């Protein structure tokens, strides 16, 4: 970023809560159904219908509040946000306004200098999602799909504590990880279950007063968040440096052109006329209830990361990657429990080859073609020297392709590591005999050639010789 400027960012993250039915009706929240097949009379805003709060969302919001060390309000209130739009059937959105269910939270991210940094969470409130307009395939008119109308959302608002696009992404990833750990959201960004608005402003370094902010709407991937914010920061700095002024406005990010553009001002010139929804009672939560929820909370990413470092003596980076997702962490721990291999070795495999294979095939850890037991079985063979790490990669690929367990593959392909000294010696002798020139050079002091010899021996043994033994025997035989 340009020197002399400080960036100030706050995020509003919209998380779809993973309830089976909607926040105020019994209709299903499943994604991808035919338009308007999952909208009941309440979702359609029919005359006379009334909202009834799905209690599950209160439980989920309370879990989130406790997970970020926030205050879970003993009393919160649903309000109506009034505006006309075809995807908003009632002409108002039910949302919490003055009295949200969660306030004063915090979490910690690792900033660009590698330091822990506290990010304040102003509030998190419950609200209903709107439907969506469909413009494609309709001649001169628009369609409305109200399946999504009434889907429960938790909107999580941060303090303006973020100082770069990278920090914003780190914070967003952290929230993403927490909501998935808690099981309160599937966090699916393609389906819109996790998206954010970013408030971005810049000010000269050292200035107390905040600059004028622009709000970037509906960013639905980590990459877009980073790119949109970076574009916006540059735009604002350039504008000010050229003598212009940032105007407070809502902007949309166009990922094709990698730029932000103002929304039409008409779309934001709304006075929402918020007032408490008289159809719903205030949400009252007792201290006992909060205590029960607290006791049911799972281990959260930070605690798990610290435990992995302590208990498994993992490198901090690996621990962070493994604990980013609860499913990955569970897979890792299941593997560790089922093998004699060192936890760090297991970590290397989960973070390395396993993640690589999953990414390559576009699979989730839950869909992994190699189970934690299967991986553990293979790593046990690495640990007991049946196969080398290099052969293990071959075995892993075969397992991934469904050729059987590690032991079956090792057996079928004859991949068992050669640890028989006489067999290795024979191979070494053969290599020495075949390469007199290199032997002479080595003996004359060109130590580096040891690698060449090891390679030749491994080739001779189709990679199956125990590398340690090969090294040892070679050095012995090549002694000048």
């Amino acid at each position, binding site marked *: 970023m340009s020197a002399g400027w400080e960036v100030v960012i706050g995020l509003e993250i919209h998380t779809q809560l993973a309830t089976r039915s909607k926040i105020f009706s019994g209709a299903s929240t499943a994604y991808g159904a035919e338009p308007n097949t999952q909208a009941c*009379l309440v979702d*359609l*805003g*029919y*005359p*006379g*219908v*009334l*909202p*009834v*709060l799905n209690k599950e969302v209160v439980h989920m919001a309370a879990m989130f509040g406790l997970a970020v060390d926030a205050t879970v309000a003993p009393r919160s209130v649903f309000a*109506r946000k*009034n505006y*006309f739009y*075809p995807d908003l*059937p*009632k*002409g*108002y959105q039910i949302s919490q306004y003055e009295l949200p269910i969660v306030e004063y939270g915090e979490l910690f991210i690792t900033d660009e200098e590698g330091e822990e940094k506290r990010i304040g969470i102003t509030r998190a409130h419950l609200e209903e999602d709107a439907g969506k307009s469909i413009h494609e395939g309709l001649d001169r008119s628009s369609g*409305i799909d109200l399946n999504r109308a009434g889907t429960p959302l938790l909107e999580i608002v941060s303090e303006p504590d973020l100082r770069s696009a990278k920090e914003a992404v780190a914070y967003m990833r952290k929230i993403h990880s927490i909501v998935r750990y808690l099981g309160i959201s599937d966090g699916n960004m393609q389906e819109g279950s996790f998206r954010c608005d970013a408030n971005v402003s810049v000010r000269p370094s050292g200035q107390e007063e905040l600059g004028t902010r622009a709000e970037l709407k509906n960013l639905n991937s980590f990459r877009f968040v980073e790119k949109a914010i970076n574009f916006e920061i540059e735009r604002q700095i350039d504008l000010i440096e050229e003598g212009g002024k940032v105007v407070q406005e809502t902007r949309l990010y166009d990922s094709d052109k990698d730029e932000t553009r103002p929304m039409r001002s008409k779309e934001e010139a709304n*006075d929402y*006329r*918020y*007032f408490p929804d*008289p*159809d*719903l*009672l205030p949400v009252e939560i007792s201290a006992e209830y909060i205590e029960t929820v607290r006791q049911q909370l799972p281990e959260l990413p930070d605690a798990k990361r610290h435990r992995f470092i302590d208990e498994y003596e993992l490198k901090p980076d690996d621990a962070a990657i493994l604990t980013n997702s609860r499913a990955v962490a569970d897979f890792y721990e299941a593997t560790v429990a089922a093998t004699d291999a060192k936890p760090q070795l297991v970590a290397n495999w989960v973070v390395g080859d396993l993640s690589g294979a999953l990414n390559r095939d576009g699979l989730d850890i839950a869909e992994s073609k190699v189970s934690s037991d299967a991986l553990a079985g293979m790593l046990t063979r690495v640990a007991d020297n049946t196969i080398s790490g290099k052969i293990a990669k071959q075995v892993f690929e075969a397992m991934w392709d469904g050729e059987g367990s590690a032991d079956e593959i090792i057996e079928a392909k004859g991949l068992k590591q050669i640890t028989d000294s006489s067999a290795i010696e024979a191979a070494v002798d053969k290599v020495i005999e075949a390469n007199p020139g290199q032997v002479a050079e080595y003996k004359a002091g060109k130590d580096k050639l040891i690698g060449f010899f090891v390679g030749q021996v491994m080739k001779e043994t189709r990679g199956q010789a125990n590398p340690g033994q090969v090294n040892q025997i070679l050095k012995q035989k090549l002694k000048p």
Partner: protein
Amino acid sequence: MMDTHSKSMTELTAGLEKGEFTSVELTAGLLERVEAHDEKLNAFVTVTADAALDAARAADAARAAGNVGVLNGLPIVHKDIFCTRGVKTTCGSKMLDNFISPYDATVVERLAAAGAVVLGKANMDEFAMGSSNETSFYGPVSNPWNLECTPGGSSGGSAAAVAARLAPAATGTDTGGSIRQPAALTGTVGIKPTYGRVSRYGMIAFASSLDQAGVIARTAEDAARVLGVMAGFDERDSTSIDHPVPDYVAAIGESIKGLKVGIVRQHFDEGLDAACGERVKEAIAVIESLGAEAVEVDLPNIDYSVPTYYVVAPAECSSNLSRFDGVRFGHRAEDFEDLRDLYCRSRGEGFGDEVKRRIMTGTYVLSAGYYDAYYLKAQQVRHLIADDFKKAFADVDVIAGPTAPTPAFRLGEKVDDPITMYLNDIYTIGANLAGLPAMSVPCGFVDGLPVGLHLVGHHFEEQTLLRFAHQYQQVTDWHTACPEAFA
């Protein structure tokens, strides 16, 4: 079979039980009366004759089989604000002239389950906004006591139908007096229960925090019968309250001896027609003669109830009526240029003047910069008024006074003067703001037009109100008087 139309539900139930007549005969008789008389009254928006006769046959069959609901075979009318499946539900508005409800309101469902037979849907002020039934898209309703007068509103069709002996009882809704004022003006009994006593599910919302469903009938006992079926918790309405429903019919037989009646001085100030005041005082004297003790109580903030109401109710209605946008149901303008134009034209064409007036008022009081001065202030005053009632009820069992400031006025007389029209509800609005049960009981006539006695009770003390009214009706006969043209 003669004269069933003038019988109370209690009498009709006895007749049905004894086999003096069937529900089909009773229903057919009333449908004939509707046919003969409603042209004069305009009390019905829709008459559901075939469905009514089917329901009557079913009720007779059920009786023969020994399965008898508490209202089995008894005809009623629903205010056209209650959603009725497969039947046009207009709310008195052009906006919903084409709206066939796909579902039944809880009230409709419960009354049907108890065996009631629905004759049709009653005319009303548009979206229940009005005190004279003149804002209805379907035209004004006439008062059976004088066809040139209003029956009151907004439940004017319900009250006129009951007063004209077209049905023994009708449902109504009351946001600021919409059951009680028409009951007073037509010489019928009308009860608005405690807020939360009856489910609002399926009742098209006007002002959600004030709306309550209730009954208009000719006797307190009949009102008790119908209310007993309507009342009770409904999980589909978050504001309905899970509180046991007493046996109202059993409760009303008890004497009112020793109970205390609060009289509010302001209720007898200059705004009240002198002759009406006399009738009300006479009624209170009768109640005293039954052993109840009248004491003066103070409601210091009651004068603010009308202005408070005309901030809170329009605010809520401006939001509640946003769903009528021409997109999914109801009136849609034929020609429009774009989305905004679709909204403006559909709503401009679909709503009448009074509804527009309240939507605009409500939008204004909720706007940024005015919210605190109007809406928030009104909510604070509302709390003060509720507290006043609470204090007053520490000493009394009911508060009694006039229901309306005058007897029925002439159609057209106040239609162009909204403020005067709004003052019609000056005595009734307080109970809505405080969520208290209240009722109107016929207590005499002024120049041939009925006058109503207003009773307000403690929360969930409908039985006490009904008991006062029933005991009063045991020693008076105002409720048996029938408008001559409808005898």
